[in-house]
């Protein structure tokens, strides 16, 4: 896990790119300087050879071959140059080179060649640069200079340059890995804290030093954001609680008074029937209000505290058993396909309510002698709980809309229900980091809650 993470780390990639760029530009700079210097050195050598050749040719033109020979001899004794005069069989006539170099040599052009030099009893192969000059009678005059030092430098340079670059890259990689590991460790701390906070522990904070670096500044900003979220959540909770309290108390009194009035009226009198209607209207109002509060709570994640490992299959069995007679009464065949023990971390009562809502809807909207199927599958992505019916279904374009609060599709307005059922299911799903998917059951609706993978509590692993 570690190596690929470092490779994909931004810090590492930045360092790597920088090192590569640095290696390329440094290499180019060195190569350019080297090339220029070498050219200057070569030009100097060539100039000396040029001048010497000119001098010797002058001697040759004035004094002929013999004059040239003596001039060469003098030069051999007094200068550092290399000279060789050969006849048309390339046989040495005079000079300080043992043999004509075995390289192709066109008169008038500079060439580099190896020659052997014997000094102090040892023979050494050395590099020279020179130019041949064609004389009359097939004679050739070679004037050269020893460039062995320059040649060695050049060879050393061309062999070490790639190694230098490789070393630079390696050091860069190591440096990058170290820096990104450091960065990753810091980011990991922040990410871990953020995950734990998202999982519901809003009182946690990201560790931050004071005064610190950019990461600490980031952590502090995150913490300030969390402070605000926590305040908002607390506010939300307070509002929900006070709405609950402030609306429930008068609703309670209203219901009490209606019941009281009903109590004093003779049974079945027109007034009693009216009051009964008002009571059931109040109850409907209370039902809607409770459902809304529950959605608000689920959305605010207030009920997160009550999250615990729960067995989904048990919930499915229970709810299916509760609704089975309702389905039977309507001639609907209700089939259950739970697959063994499937655990999720969640709020039992909310998941139960969500499943009850899905099943309630499915039975409500499926015509007589239809089919409803509850299915629980364990997938690598987590548990999937689905309720499929053979009812009219929901057009693809409306599926996102029905999850919104209060939306009930026009076609089904005549069926009872508050239109909050699916909203609650969606809110419960969100609270559990699950996803509510509405799909075509062909025909009918297939609603699936995709739970995230179940993370076993540590105690259970051991």
């Amino acid at each position, binding site marked *: 896990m570690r190596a690929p993470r470092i490779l994909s780390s931004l810090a590492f990639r930045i360092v790597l790119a920088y090192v590569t760029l640095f290696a390329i530009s440094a290499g180019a700079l060195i190569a350019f300087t080297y090339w220029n210097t070498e050219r200057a050195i070569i030009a100097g050598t060539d100039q000396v050879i040029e001048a010497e050749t000119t001098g010797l040719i002058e001697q040759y033109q004035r004094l002929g071959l013999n004059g040239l020979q003596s001039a060469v001899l003098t030069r051999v004794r007094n200068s550092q140059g290399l000279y060789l005069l050969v006849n048309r069989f390339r046989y040495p006539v005079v000079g300080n080179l043992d043999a004509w170099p075995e390289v192709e040599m066109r008169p008038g052009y500079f060439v580099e060649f190896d020659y052997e030099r014997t000094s102090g009893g040892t023979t050494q192969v050395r590099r020279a640069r020179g130019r041949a000059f064609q004389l009359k009678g097939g004679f050739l005059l070679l004037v050269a200079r020893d460039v062995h030092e320059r040649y060695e430098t050049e060879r050393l340079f061309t062999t070490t340059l790639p190694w230098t670059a490789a070393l630079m890259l390696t050091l860069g990689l190591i440096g990058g890995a170290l820096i990104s590991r450091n960065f990753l460790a810091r980011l990991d701390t922040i990410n871990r804290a953020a995950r734990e906070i998202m999982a519901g522990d809003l009182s946690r904070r990201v560790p931050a030093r004071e005064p610190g670096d950019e990461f600490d500044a980031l952590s502090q900003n995150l913490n300030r954001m969390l402070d605000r979220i926590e305040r908002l959540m607390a506010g939300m909770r307070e509002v*929900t*609680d006070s709405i*609950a*309290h402030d609306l*429930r*108390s008068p*609703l*309670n*009194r*209203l*219901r*009490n*008074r209606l*019941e*009281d009035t009903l109590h004093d009226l003779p049974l079945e009198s027109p007034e009693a029937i009216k009051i*009964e209607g008002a*009571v059931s209207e*109040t*109850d409907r109002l*209370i*039902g809607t209000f*409770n459902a809304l*509060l*529950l959605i608000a*709570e689920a959305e605010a994640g*207030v*009920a997160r*505290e*009550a999250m615990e490992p729960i067995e989904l299959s048990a919930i499915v069995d*229970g709810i299916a*058993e*509760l*609704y089975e*007679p*309702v389905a039977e*009464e309507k001639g609907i065949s209700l089939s259950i396909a739970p697959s063994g023990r499937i655990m999720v971390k969640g*709020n039992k*009562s*909310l998941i*139960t*309510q969500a499943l*009850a*809502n899905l099943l*309630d809807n499915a*039975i*409500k909207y499926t015509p007589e002698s239809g089919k409803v199927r509850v299915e629980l599958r364990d997938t690598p992505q987590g548990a999937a709980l689905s309720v499929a019916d053979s009812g009219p279904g929901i057009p693809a374009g409306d599926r996102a809309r029905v999850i919104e609060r209060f939306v009930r599709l026009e076609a089904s307005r005549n069926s*009872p*229900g*508050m239109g909050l*059922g699916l909203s609650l299911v969606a809110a419960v799903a969100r609270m559990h980091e699950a996803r509510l998917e509405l799909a075509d059951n062909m025909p009918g609706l297939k609603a699936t809650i995709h739970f995230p993978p179940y993370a076993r509590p540590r105690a259970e692993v051991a």
Partner: protein
Amino acid sequence: MRILVVEDDLEAQRYLVQGLKEAGHVVDDAADGETGLNLALSRPYDVAIVDRMLPKMDGLKLVEEVREHGNVTPVLFLSALSDVDDRVKGLKAGGDDYLTKPYAFVELLARIDALMRRRSPAAVKTRLQVGDLELDLLTRAANRGNTPIDLQPREFRLLEYLMRHAGQVVTRTMLLESVWEYHFDPQTNVIDVHISRLRAKIDKGFDTPLLHTVRGAGYMIRARA
């Protein structure tokens, strides 16, 4: 029966007290937690009805204190709080039942009856009988007269609950909470369907029906109409 009502909403309190008195109970009332605690500790009650949010002393605290003094009077919490966890907190603090406002008075009355019944030692029975309907809790057998009745496990529990509260009104919510252990409001009349199934098994073909529907309240099992 003596009932203590601790409720700070005075209109609700008056209504509650009046209703309970009409139902034949002796009622003491308190409007704050401290007064409530003093009453609860100084006089014997059969049931205490305590609001969750009270001035001076919170309802939860009140019940915790009462329990610390070894007092086991059944407590019914009334709450305007909606939180899913509030019920759990209330029961943990020592409450025996929990009712969210607004409630129907029949619901409250039925629950109080159930709480008082729970207190009586007669609860440890192995056989329940209503009229000629007999339920053997050990062999899990049900008989009406000489006719054996075949019941599903859940139907058995439903009938058992009804028979334990024979002669008392049992509401749909009470059945859902006690027999199924669900604490939500199913939008469909699920309980009615279960009851009519049970009724078909125990009453169909017999001269006197035992399982009665109490209009606007719930159900009741009793020998005489």
